[in-house]
């Protein structure tokens, strides 16, 4: 990296001692680029083996990379922590303005240690770090209100990110998320609950530094190449036009849209909640993350009468993306677009993972249908497919946990099923509730081996749709295909670009773009480095008890035919064994 690049500055904040300091960590950035590559090293340094995810010892690592602030669509911040939801590696990515703000504040990473005894929020403005009392914000019903208050109190509008938790994080729901810029989320694996355990209500970061480049002419040339590709290529157009809900109809058509707790993989109401339907009836505004011209963020405008007074309306702007939409739509049998928008708004209000919440409610609905639970457990609510009003009532109860049943739901679907039964249709893998792709075996293997923890999905659904739909792969071949793609994605998430631009950021371009930032890494070395970073993540995972011998595969995924036909359990298990063998060979561990 370039010597005068602020990327190597790591800001350490100790919430217990209310202290902060900066350390120059060029050693890490030179070797591992940034993002997930540097982040996992910081996690190894900071997170003691076997620590309590809610303990003060569990650190929160934020990391960005050299391309953030330099090139378009490099818009992601990587967070790493120990997940309270899985008890293992927690990784969550988000855009908004987070990555640009951290980079422009003059940091490559922020490490948060310790825990505060009172609610506070951190305001980091360049080199200034302020610990602000957040007692008055704690317990607020809506995370949107908390964001609004902070927006009014802090400076640097346009140059800042405001990450904040809602009630779910405060109540330590292990799948609570962190909202940033209202409409983006560090959604998965419970970063919000780790914030909550530290009494950290929010994190504001702002700044506007300049960044060095190795060669201004080369910089401009590569910049234009990427910018033009981002605004002109068909690969990005789908994100721009309909956004991620563009996936609803194609996935439904091939029979890969999990419906009613995956009792079906096609949804009769898909056309009512498709990207096309939302665009036609509700799309009110499109937004972009900072330094991304694509604008994939789609907001629906929902106009509703109050009902108690004539001519009195409210209009809410609600973000809709494929994954939340799958989990709170088809998974719950909901085809009423307005009802679905209200559910999306409800989970955003408390800042809880929409995917986990939807899958948990889908399990609960089936459990009630089968008589495993009754209205005694649900506090009088009859959960039923398609009835969004029942789910609107249940979501706040999961957060507030008035009885043992809701306390169980608040711990995730595996925990709830271990008490009430129904593990065969509890759709979680490695304790994390499933993403919205019943595409085939690759998707499930990818989710289970949890090769990239952060997100909604893994490369598996793409392998199912592009490869397995046409030809058969041996378990060994499938294992190798999945790992190869995920290893490459470790590089993309170290830069740290948005994976929607993965068709633009090919190895050759990545190598040239890195040259501008002073990194001399030829494409073949990038592949080697991706493998090493991947391996470093597994080192953490195995340390924390991850196993590829002892895992739960819910029967349901084998009962409902996928897009490539009925799944063969033996094939899935053999593939996982092959993954293990490849990893063992690499790691010398089991």
């Amino acid at each position: 990296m370039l010597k005068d690049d602020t990327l190597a500055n790591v800001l350490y904040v100790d919430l217990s001692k209310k202290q902060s300091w900066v350390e120059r960590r060029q050693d890490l950035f030179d070797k591992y680029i940034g993002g997930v590559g540097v982040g996992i090293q910081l996690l190894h340094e900071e997170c003691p083996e076997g620590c309590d995810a809610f303990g003060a010892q569990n650190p929160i690592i934020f990391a960005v990379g050299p391309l953030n602030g330099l090139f378009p669509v490099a818009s992601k911040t990587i967070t790493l922590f120990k997940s309270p939801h899985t008890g293992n590696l927690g990784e969550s990515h988000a855009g908004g303005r987070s990555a640009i703000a951290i980079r422009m504040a003059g940091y490559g990473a922020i490490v948060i240690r310790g825990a505060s005894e009172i609610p506070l929020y951190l305001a980091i403005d360049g080199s200034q770090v302020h610990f602000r009392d957040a007692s008055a914000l704690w317990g607020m019903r809506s995370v949107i209100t908390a964001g609004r208050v902070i927006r009014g109190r802090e400076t640097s509008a346009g140059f800042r990110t405001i990450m904040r938790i809602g009630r779910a994080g405060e109540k330590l729901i292990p799948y609570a998320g962190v909202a940033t810029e209202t409409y983006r989320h560090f959604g998965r694996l419970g970063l919000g609950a780790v914030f909550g355990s530290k009494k950290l209500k929010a994190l504001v970061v702002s700044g506007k530094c300049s960044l060095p480049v190795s060669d201004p002419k080369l910089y401009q040339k590569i910049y234009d190449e990427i910018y033009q590709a981002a605004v002109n290529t068909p690969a990005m157009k789908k994100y721009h036009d309909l956004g991620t809900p563009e996936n609803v109809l194609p996935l439904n058509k091939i029979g890969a849209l999990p419906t009613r707790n995956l009792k079906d993989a096609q949804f009769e109401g898909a056309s009512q909640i498709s990207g096309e339907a939302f665009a036609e009836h509700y799309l009110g505004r499109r937004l972009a993350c900072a330094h991304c011209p694509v604008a994939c963020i789609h907001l629906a405008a929902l106009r509703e009468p109050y009902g108690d007074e004539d001519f009195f309306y409210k209009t809410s702007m609600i973000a809709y993306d494929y994954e939340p939409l799958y989990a709170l739509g088809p998974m719950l049998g909901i085809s009423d677009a307005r009802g679905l928008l209200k559910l999306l708004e409800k989970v955003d209000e408390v800042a809880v993972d929409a995917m986990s919440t939807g899958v948990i409610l889908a399990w609960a609905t089936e459990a009630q249908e089968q008589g495993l639970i009754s209205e005694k457990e649900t506090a009088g609510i009859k959960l039923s497919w398609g009835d969004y009003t029942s789910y609107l009532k249940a979501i706040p109860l999961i957060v507030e946990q008035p009885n043992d049943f809701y306390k169980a739901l608040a711990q995730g679907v595996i925990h709830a099923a271990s008490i009430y039964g129904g593990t065969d249709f509890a759709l979680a893998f490695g304790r994390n509730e499933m993403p919205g792709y019943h595409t085939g075996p690759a998707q499930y293997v990818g989710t289970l081996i949890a090769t990239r923890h952060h997100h909604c999905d893994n490369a598996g659904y793409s392998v199912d749709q592009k490869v397995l739909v046409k030809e058969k792969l041996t378990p060994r071949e499938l294992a190798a295909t999945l790992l190869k793609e995920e290893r490459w994605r470790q590089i993309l998430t170290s830069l740290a670009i948005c994976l929607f631009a993965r068709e633009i950021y090919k190895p050759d371009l990545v190598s040239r773009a890195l040259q501008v930032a002073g990194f001399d890494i030829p494409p073949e070395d990038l592949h080697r480095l991706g493998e090493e970073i991947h391996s470093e993540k597994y080192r953490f995972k195995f340390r924390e008890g991850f196993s590829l011998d002892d895992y739960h595969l819910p029967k349901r995924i084998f009962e409902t035919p996928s897009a490539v036909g009925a799944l063969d359990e033996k094939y899935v298990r053999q593939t996982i064994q092959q993954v293990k063998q490849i990893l063992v060979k690499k790691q010398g561990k089991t």
Partner: protein
Amino acid sequence: MKLSVVDTERCIGCQSCMFACSRLMGKAGLTRTCIGVRSAGGMERGFVVIVCRACEDPPCVKVCPSGALKAKKGKGVRVDLTKCIGCGNCQDACPIGAVFWDDEADKPMICIHCGYCVKYCPHGVLELVKLEAVTC
């Protein structure tokens, strides 16, 4: 030609214009940007795009104590950094906040209406317009 913000409702908040401006000044990052995009009180309300309007009688020029600012007819204001004492009067005087500040040099920065940012606006929020066409 003058830079004009033709429709902020089309703005997606990507800030590509801000990065372009800073890049043109030879800097990656945002230190040197003379155009600002921020939310209009929450992103759901859209965005405010702040840039010099090339006023006919610019208030920033009138309050400069050292004669560093000069109005260029229809092309905004030029800052003579050798004369500028960095007092910040110009920034205070601009009611729309279009005098930006270079914290590293401690001097003002004002758009020169070159139109470079227009090339990086993906949705036609910004345009370079002929002077006679400018009405606002």
